[in-house]
């Protein structure tokens, strides 16, 4: 059923003018960089799950030792090597404090006349594994975050200066990097730890010693890409200072890359700390990190698998979550994927 156009009153039509002032109107609501990234990361199930896992682990790292009725340091020799036991779950046949002793399954809590609960069991000195695991997580996270931040600051500053000022400065700085880049991280980290007093600071210094190089190379590349673009030239023409150009024009543009890189530095730092502690170069007792806990547990794996199990699970979850989140952020910040 077609309408006869002539029957429609002329008043219902309106002449359309080309309004040049409207030509550049933005119809889509303008999204900031962060809103845009958030919209995309929200769709990434793995990244969202990782955020929840990370928040949970970080909260537990601080709340865990407080919640547990036992603290991490107290050694109760009579309570040594107890398997995990949790209120409520014990009736289901799991976490009921039953362990093997001389090849037989016995309720070790009953045998040792322990009437309290150790959620993750105890270690060889009767210390509560639940508190120890979360305090270890705290230390591991602390090392990882501090190392990542130091890497970021040095890397961004070095790469930024080298890329922005270019010329002879860049030449010299890049030759230095080229030489340092050839030094295997593992070797330098082990050597430094041998010389320094073992402890959290030593590990952080050892990890950051070569850690910033990757960041500096990426930042330099990005700065080189942006500093010759028109908007920077325009800003310079208008008389903006170097400081203003860097902070207002270049930094916001490379922020995504910096964040992604930092997200991948954190799991690397966690791994290195655990690795060093595992080969005996890391923290020394009584300090405990996830790495030292795993090392302790490894020695007793045949008899007390629970001592190895919980720190390993937390460490693996942390690593998986940071890697997944890093992946998600990379997809979210990647301008190539913008629609």
């Amino acid at each position, binding site marked *: 059923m077609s309408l006869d156009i002539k029957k429609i009153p002329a008043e219902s039509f309106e002449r359309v003018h080309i309004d040049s002032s409207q030509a550049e109107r933005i119809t889509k609501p303008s999204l900031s960089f962060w809103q845009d990234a958030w919209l995309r990361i929200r769709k990434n199930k793995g990244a969202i799950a990782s955020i929840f896992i990370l928040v949970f682990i970080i909260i537990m790292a601080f709340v865990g030792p407080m919640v547990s009725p036992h603290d991490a340091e107290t050694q109760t020799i009579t309570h040594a090597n107890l398997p995990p036991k949790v209120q409520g779950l014990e009736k289901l046949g799991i976490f009921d404090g039953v362990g093997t002793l001389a090849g037989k399954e016995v309720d070790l809590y009953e045998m040792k006349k322990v009437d309290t609960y150790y959620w993750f069991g105890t270690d060889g000195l009767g210390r509560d594994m639940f508190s120890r695991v979360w305090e270890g997580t705290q230390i591991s996270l602390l090392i990882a975050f501090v190392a990542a931040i130091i890497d970021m600051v040095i890397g961004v500053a070095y790469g930024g200066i080298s890329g922005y000022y270019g010329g002879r400065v860049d030449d010299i700085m890049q030759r230095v990097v080229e030489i340092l880049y050839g030094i295997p991280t593992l*070797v330098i980290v082990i050597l430094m730890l041998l010389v320094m007093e073992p402890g959290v600071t030593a590990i952080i210094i050892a990890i950051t010693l070569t850690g910033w190089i990757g960041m500096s190379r990426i930042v330099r590349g990005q700065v080189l890409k942006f500093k010759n673009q028109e908007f920077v030239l325009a800003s310079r023409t208008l008389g903006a200072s170097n400081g203003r150009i860097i902070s207002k024009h270049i930094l916001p543009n490379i922020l995504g890359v910096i964040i992604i890189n930092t997200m991948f530095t954190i799991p690397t730092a966690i791994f290195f700390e655990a690795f060093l502690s595992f080969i005996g170069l890391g923290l020394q007792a009584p300090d405990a990190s996830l790495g030292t806990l795993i090392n302790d547990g490894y020695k007793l*794996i045949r008899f007390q698998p629970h001592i190895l199990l919980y720190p390993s699970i937390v460490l693996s979850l942390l690593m998986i979550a940071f890697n997944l989140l890093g992946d998600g952020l990379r997809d979210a910040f990647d301008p190539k994927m913008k629609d």
Partner: protein
Amino acid sequence: MTKYIIRRIVYMFITLFLIASATFFLMKALPGSPISSASKLPPSQLAVVEAKYGLDQPVPVQYAKYMLNLAKGDLGNSFQFKNASVTDLIMNRLGPSVLIGSQGLILGVAIGILLGMIAALRQNTIWDYGSTLIAIIGISIPSFVFATLLQYWLGVKWGLLPVALWKDGWMSSILPSIALAMGPLATASRFIRTEMIEVISSDYITLAKSKGASGFEIAFKHAFRNALIPLITVLGPLAAGLLTGSLVIEQIFAIPGIGEQFVKAIVSNDFSIIMGTTIFYSVFLIVIIFVVDVLYGIVDPRIRLSGGSK
């Protein structure tokens, strides 16, 4: 290309020189001394021992001597193992390390390539997600955690394979190789997936398809070959990862390799073994990265033009 190679070789030597010097002075700065447990000796005896190892000379002289010997390929003698030469100590232990390292690398890269191809060809299906999951786990779970799990379940609980000690010949190398393979597996599979997806969407694949080539033929004959080339670039980081892994894996499985000896030397303050192994590792990694870069320039002409600016 020749200019690029020469430049890289020069840098290689500068890096090595720096590492060797740093190693030497750091070792000198160490609190312990390899003969500190012999301090019960009367001073006259102690002086004899020190003179024997050249420890009585001023540090610059020791340094010059050390660097000269190094240039000749002599890494000095061990304090611990009855004066055995460090070069010999390292060479004697090379076998097991090379065996598990190469087995781990080959196994990991082969399975990784397979997983990556499956993921790329069946993009956004359960196959893809499965292989991504394996890759994430492989990257995330530290090799020493994975190794202890393998040891506990396959070795202790089920008794399938030898748990530790290098006594059952090749059988003993299976578990450590699997533990080492996880890293290369994860890296290779993710890398191949990205590359394959990129290659598959290129024009010549569409052409092959329109000419009626079978899916299998396209995947293996056309796409795979080009996706494989960039894999060379990750060989450097992979080798570094294998080295790191071997330190703990050899410890866990009690394998008489270089890594195990290195960790023991760290504990017992055996300077010359630590220095020797450090330099050995550095040479190994630096040469691999160099070979990889040159190889890549030869295989992929697009890189050659830009002449080494990374």
